[in-house]
């Protein structure tokens, strides 16, 4: 059940280079929120930009606090970064389908890149089973929430393209090691990050005989399945072998085996 409610800003701070964290008081939304879902935010006072912006639900707490992590990339997020305690934003959420939590005998393996790490935090945080976070970025500055993930008890492995932190290279290169170490155990994969990374992760895992839940975010407009702006290709039983699925309402989580890599 998703709702529209006004969320007052409790605090809004720079976290790392370009990454901010904002806490809203939004009890109607937090009470139903699950890992992998997102909110659709109307950034207050941004008068000449009328569309909402989608952000993954990074954390929720019982007192109604809804946390999102965001990177300043354009006019909206820049404006958001200037809002202050007590400013009020109109929020829709929780939207989209959540990740399915690992079963009791499964070890969760999360592969995340950039702000994708915001989307999977609650998953590992809530999971009884400790697992892995494979976190990648272009450089050290893109690796967010490392300490918070460590606190969940899961193992955090990192990679950066420029080698400024952890393994030098792509995050997908961390996967074989995890597979090797966990031979015979049941693994459950999740991934969230830039489209290119997700496509690579999905194809690599499928090749290894695993499936994965990929959180495929795409430019959104309505956020509820009404406008068909946010579509990606998924496999389908039709002439073309694919159809366009709405990432907002049919996703954002898709199985790697469902995605059409064409």
């Amino acid at each position, binding site marked *: 059940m998703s709702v529209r409610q006004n969320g007052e800003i409790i605090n809004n701070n720079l976290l790392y280079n370009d990454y901010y964290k904002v806490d809203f008081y939004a009890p109607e939304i937090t009470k139903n929120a699950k890992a992998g879902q997102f909110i659709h935010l109307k950034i207050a006072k941004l008068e000449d930009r*009328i569309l909402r912006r989608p952000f993954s639900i990074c954390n929720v707490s019982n007192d109604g606090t809804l946390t999102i992590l965001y990177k300043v990339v354009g006019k909206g997020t820049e404006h958001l970064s200037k809002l202050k305690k007590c400013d009020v934003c109109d929020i829709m959420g929780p939207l989209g389908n959540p990740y399915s939590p690992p079963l009791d005998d499964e070890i969760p393996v999360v592969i995340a890149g950039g702000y994708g790490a915001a989307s999977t935090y609650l998953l590992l945080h809530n999971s009884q089973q400790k697992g892995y976070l494979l976190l990648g970025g272009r450089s050290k500055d893109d690796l967010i929430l490392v300490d918070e993930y460590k606190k969940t008890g899961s193992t955090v492995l990192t990679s950066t393209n420029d080698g400024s932190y952890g393994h030098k290279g792509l995050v997908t290169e961390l996967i074989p090691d995890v597979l090797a170490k966990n031979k015979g155990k049941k693994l459950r994969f999740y991934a969230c990050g830039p489209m290119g990374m997700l496509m690579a992760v999905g194809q690599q895992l499928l090749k290894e005989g695993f499936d994965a839940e990929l959180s495929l975010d795409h430019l959104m407009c309505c956020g509820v399945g009404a406008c068909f702006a946010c579509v990606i290709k998924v496999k389908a039983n039709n002439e073309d072998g694919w159809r366009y699925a709405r990432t907002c309402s049919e996703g954002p989580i898709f199985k790697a085996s469902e995605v059409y890599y064409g």
Partner: protein
Amino acid sequence: MANLTTNLNTENHPFNEKLILKNPVMPASGTFGYGVEYAEYFKLEKLGAVVVKGIAPFASHGNPTPRVAEVTSGMLNAIGLQGPGIDKFLKGEEYLPFLKQQNCPIIVNIWGKTVEDYVEVAERLNEEADALTAIEINISCPNVKEGGVAFGTDEKLAYTVISKVRAATNIPLITKLSPNVTKIAPFAQVAEDAGSNMISLINTIPGMAIDIKTRKPKIANLTGGLSGPAIKPIAVRMVNEAYNAVKIPIIGMGGIMTGDDAIEFFLAGASAIGVGTAIFADPMAPINIIDGIDKFLDSEGFGNISDIIGQMGK
């Protein structure tokens, strides 16, 4: 509480109970999906009518992505009429069968690549004639190569497609006009002459935005249709020009965000209004607009919405 009852009948057409709406506010086609997507936010029966996204005889993928881009006080879209096609629309759980249970007048927007396509959807909709309040003929989508706007910018083609659809169904017809013409009045007249019971305008206006970093168009289709507050003055002008040209009721739209915006359209001559892009900004927009219209009428001392239609002074 002013009386918002909206009568979309005209003298020279048979009187139709269904064309009396409880209020003049409906979503604009394509911005409200098939209704089900917003049913969590408010009861659909609060709307004057529900207008669904364009239906063709066939299912269609729509355009490649990116399909939308935000621009100053508006947006561009080139969805390209992705849709389930008429079969699924008539039978699929989340389409017409769902809507029929909502106690809300239903308007089905239709499109096709050929005149025959339009006729085919209209004929198929006859199967559900009792459930439908009107068919809106979209001859103005700027985002599909065949059909769409080609019909809406050529008076003869427009006449052909409207009159053939007219012959195919008794369901009341709305013709959705393209703003992409030098003069809108002749097209409004063509719609009236060809037997359309109402017209709706405006559809989106072709536009382009370029990402200066990547140097690529922000819309994969190159151009997309501009909607939102940016186009409101153009829409109000066209509604007024159409109002001076025809007797059939007008459903005005283009950039309506508030009740006050809607009032401008009524004064310009619209009998009802469509809310499009505003819904993306706020799913409650149609409901807030109904309230806003009511408040305006009350505070200015008008008892009925019909009191202000076309009542722009000099």
